[in-house]
């Protein structure tokens, strides 16, 4: 509880997240109808894999259909733009499926016309060397995760305003033996959400995995942030996939221009 300037006493969120326990105590007094509504909502929350072109749900798990040795996942617009421009521009990449999810907080729109930089989940494999991911953790599979965070999330004894952004940090699982292409993320810094979920899974199931995290002060699509991922192109997972870096830079510039025009509300 806290008092405001005007003397009201308000409930402040507890950093241990315990305010929800009151809701759950109330849950003991909720009617069967309330419980049924909650159950229906929970059932509606789902993650489904399907073929985007045909909109058919994948009968067999995507993961079983396309076993692989390298799984690269990019989360966030800058990471996705990097992967699209520098890795997926060479060779023929075939879309093998996409994930659609729904929960009460979603504002899902038509997914058919999204640009590669928008938040969505699409799976591709390289036709010349099919390598997506297997549902059963495979001993020789390697996972690479790319994502961005705002530099104010980074804890350091100096002020974050004095840091030279963007910069790269890495976290790797115990079984990942390759030296990372930047320094490791030092404590007390931590990572949450999807990148953490993927890395946790890999750590527990002993899959070699590495997360490259770019700390930046520009969270929208930004050339300098995207190029900060370049050291990762020398990694074992990506080296063989990268063919033409000058072409990649051109693709990236085009992507940036397209995005800028779209975001200009005055034309």
């Amino acid at each position: 509880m806290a008092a405001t300037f005007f003397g009201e006493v308000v409930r402040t969120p507890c950093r241990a997240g315990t305010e929800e326990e009151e809701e759950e105590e109330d849950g003991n007094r909720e009617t069967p109808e309330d419980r049924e509504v909650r159950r229906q909502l929970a059932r509606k929350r789902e993650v489904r894999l399907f073929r985007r072109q045909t909109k058919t749900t994948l009968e067999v798990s995507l993961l079983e259909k396309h076993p692989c040795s390298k799984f690269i996942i990019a989360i966030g617009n800058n990471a996705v733009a990097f992967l699209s421009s520098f890795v997926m521009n060479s060779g023929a990449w075939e879309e093998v499926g996409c994930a659609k999810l729904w929960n009460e907080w979603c504002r899902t729109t038509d997914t058919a016309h999204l640009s590669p930089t928008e938040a969505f989940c699409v799976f591709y494999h390289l036709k010349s060397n099919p390598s997506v991911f297997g549902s059963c953790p495979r001993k020789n599979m390697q996972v690479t995760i790319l994502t961005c965070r705002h530099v104010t999330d980074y804890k350091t004894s100096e002020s974050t305003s004095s840091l030279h952004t963007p910069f790269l940090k890495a976290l790797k699982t115990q079984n990942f033996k390759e030296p990372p292409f930047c320094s490791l993320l030092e404590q007390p810094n931590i990572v949450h959400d999807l990148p953490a979920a993927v890395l946790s899974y890999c750590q527990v199931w002993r899959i070699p995995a590495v997360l490259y995290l770019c700390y930046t002060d520009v969270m929208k699509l930004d050339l300098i942030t995207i190029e900060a991922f370049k050291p990762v192109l020398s990694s074992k997972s990506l080296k063989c996939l990268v063919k033409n870096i000058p072409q990649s830079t051109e693709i990236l510039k085009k992507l940036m221009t397209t995005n800028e025009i779209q975001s200009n509300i005055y034309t």
Partner: protein
Amino acid sequence: MPAVSVGNVGQLAIDLIISTLNMHKIGYFYTDCLVPMVGNNPYATAEENSAELSINAEVYALPSKKLVALQLRSIFIKYKSKSFCEKLLSWVKCSGCAKVVVLSSSHSYHRNDLQLRSTPFRYLLTPSMQKSVQNKIQSLNWEEMEKTPCIPEIDDSEFCVRVPGGGITKLLYDEGCSKEIPIAILLKFVSEGDNIPDALGLVEYLNEWLQIIKPHCEDPTASSLPWKMPSSWRLLFGSGLPPALF
């Protein structure tokens, strides 16, 4: 184990125990009930051991003291705390733990007048735990957590155990009672802020009973702080300040 509770006192206390006793990680409690998080070894003492990845729920052990610690590092996903308690207690039962100790905390502003005037520490024991440790606990002159009206708005409401701000503490207690699992809950009334002193107080309270480290008053050569703070406790209140602020 900790309850994720106000001030994160239980979790800080478990950090102190793992760090001081140099407990080794023996496994993970892999669950979808907690918000995912990862980071490097929070108990690193040197460059060599700083690169081990840690996740949100890990199990540590010290075989010489027959001690196992579960550390929880993130908050519960909405509506998943009951499911977590069930899975946890099922694991506890299967693994044959002799007793479970939950370190927790409760909102200090919820105290009644009597509680305000007494020690801020409280304990709770499930019936199966009472049988084995009641005498020892009584000899320590500890205060049991008082029962409060279940529905405060109603005058003749029944009294029951409530732990406001205690997270899953009450759930664990109730499940422990109904499933006959020996659980002892040790908690402190706290307010959110710099809760390191509260965590130190709670581990000293636990130590009065379990004697996991030698009580420092018995050893005059020991430093005033026998509990070792982990390296990850740096920068608890954020990064350094920009000089331009001044």
